[in-house]
């Protein structure tokens, strides 16, 4: 094997310029894939982090039918005390669940005494919410106590409303809403913070303390609209979702369904962007495969043609067809291996440089800092792809070499 590798490398160096050009082509392909995958992974990670850590959390549980009507924040679809106790029991017994935050969602009218506008309000326990969505407080300006970022009597309003109504920290507003029985109520609240908006559904979101939500909506017991759940590890999303689905008896035909559950992927309107980003990486991977396949097949076919007499010589000496095939396969593999190594190194360097440049860009409603990242699995996949395609591209030339008639090959000029 060592001799086979040695001969393969020497044969590659025989035509230095051609080998170099082919290798450069593969290196460029690998760098392109590494950069794209690194950028895509970083982008996905950033967007996922923004969505899950500041608003959605990893999983949300609602009353059956709530999600279908989520835009109207239906007050009649809530989890009552008994249902909440059952849910808490399930969540507390699941070790993958880090923390959860019960929320009361409702639509309200915000008035600064001269103007009125609508706002989507979430009543929360700030301690629980800060743990469930740790990035939320970073999006709120003006808060003094990061853990108790909204206390009873206080409100967090979105920046678009603050700007439109010229509202500042400490100003008071009146928040009015109608409860599920049609009874209207209002509460005067002081602005404790101003929330940076994402846009879309999250453009007019505000927060009040859960006790104030109960007061405005005249609830005797909290009527929970949703429970936001944070997991210890986002990678556990699928198995934990399955566990919770089973434990909460969701989707079971023989039992009345109380809960519905959605992961952040279902809840986020931006998941399709992430799918698109994934598709782009697949296109780039396909381009890499084409580059490796065509360039290595080309160089190996030329090698077989130019070394026909040499193949005749080694065949005459008694080299088996299998060994001749092995020689050419090893040559293709060696070229792929060297190229992918340089490609990965150069690709890694490109990612480091991109990170060092601190590039900030806008992607839809998000302002993101470009942080690239690439997993070991991605590196292994890229390497394996190049190596497998290298061997595959060398198969036909290697087979042709092994089938050459020694007499014809020796007579080749």
């Amino acid at each position: 094997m060592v001799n086979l590798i040695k001969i393969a490398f020497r044969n590659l160096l025989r035509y230095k310029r051609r080998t170099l050009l082919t290798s450069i082509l593969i290196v460029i392909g690998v760098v392109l894939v590494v950069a794209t995958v690194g950028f895509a992974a970083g982008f996905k990670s950033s967007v996922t982090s923004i969505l899950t850590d500041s608003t959605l959390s990893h999983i949300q549980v609602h009353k059956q039918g709530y999600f279908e009507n989520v835009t109207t924040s239906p007050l009649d679809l809530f989890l009552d005390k008994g249902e909440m106790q059952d849910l808490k029991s399930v969540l507390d017994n699941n070790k993958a669940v880090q923390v959860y935050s019960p929320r009361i969602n409702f639509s309200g009218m915000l008035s600064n005494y001269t103007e009125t506008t609508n706002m989507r309000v979430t009543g929360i326990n700030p301690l629980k919410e800060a743990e469930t969505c740790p990035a939320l407080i970073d999006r709120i300006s003006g808060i003094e106590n990061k853990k108790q970022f909204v206390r009873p009597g206080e409100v967090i309003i979105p920046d678009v409303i603050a700007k439109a109504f010229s509202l500042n920290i400490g100003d008071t507003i009146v928040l009015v809403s109608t409860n599920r029985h049609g009874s209207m109520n209002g509460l005067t609240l002081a602005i404790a913070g101003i929330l940076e908006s994402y846009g879309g559904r999250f453009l007019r979101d505000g927060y009040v303390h859960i006790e104030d939500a109960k007061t405005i909506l005249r609830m005797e017991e909290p009527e929970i609209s949703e429970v936001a759940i944070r997991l210890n590890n986002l990678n556990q999303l699928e198995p934990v979702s399955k566990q919770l689905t089973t434990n909460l008896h969701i989707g079971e035909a023989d039992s009345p369904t109380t809960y519905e559950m959605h992961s952040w992927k279902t809840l986020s309107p931006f998941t399709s962007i992430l799918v698109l980003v994934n598709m782009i990486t697949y296109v780039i991977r396909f381009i890499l495969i084409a580059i490796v396949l065509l360039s290595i097949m080309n160089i190996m076919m030329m090698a077989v043609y130019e070394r026909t007499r040499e193949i005749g010589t080694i065949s005459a000496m008694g080299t088996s067809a299998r060994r001749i095939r092995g020689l050419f396969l090893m040559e293709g593999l060696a070229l792929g291996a060297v190229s992918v190594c340089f490609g990965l190194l150069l690709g890694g360097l490109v990612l480091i440089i991109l990170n060092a440049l601190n590039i900030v860009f806008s992607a839809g409603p998000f302002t993101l800092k470009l942080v690239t990242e690439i997993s070991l699995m991605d590196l292994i996949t890229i390497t394996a792809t190049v190596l497998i395609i290298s061997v595959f591209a060398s198969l036909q030339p290697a087979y042709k070499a092994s089938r050459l008639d020694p007499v014809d090959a020796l007579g080749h000029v």
Partner: protein
Amino acid sequence: MSLIEIKDVSKIYNTGEVKVAALNSISASIEQGSFICFVGPSGSGKTTLLNLIGCLTKPTEGSITIAGAHVNSLNRSQAAHFRGEHLGFIFQDFNLIPVLTVYENIEYPLIMVKNVPKKERQALIFDLLAKVGMLDQKNKYPHQISGGQKQRVAVARALVTNPKVVLADEPTANLDHKTAFKIIGVMKAMKESLNTTFIFSTHDPKVVKEAEIVYTLEDGQLLGIKKGVK
């Protein structure tokens, strides 16, 4: 029994609709340890006969037996194995592998054909390098040595697997007279020391004189066998 038995061998090439008889009912017996020359003009069938004995092609008619094996019936893979075990080749253009050194060229059949262990390989190669006078050139690449030196390396490579027969198609054609005689001398010395059968073809009448037995071919037919020239 002779080492090589050739019985009524014919070889016809089909070139489109035209059939060309390269050899026509040739018979011969070649003994172990002989030093034989095939002589004749271009197109006489020398190379075809060497290719048939070398199991590189099959006769259209007749049979060839080498070391007791009916080589006509060998398939492609068996023929390759047989060549590796029993035959050595020397070519007119030397056909050394350009990316390998002198030492590695001789080592090649021991690794790729016979899987000989490293220590054993070293002993065999150094012995042959000394015999062909190339020991001091062992680390050079083919492009760094002369034509005569290349052919010495080719002789060593052909002999390193200890074959029963070495076939050489015009081994001196690309060499000057002085070098050609040296190569023939090396081949003869090897034949003496290893008892290997050498069969070579040539146009050169002076080289022919060096052979023990001369087979004269013309138009695919064996015209005569001359023994005891030297």
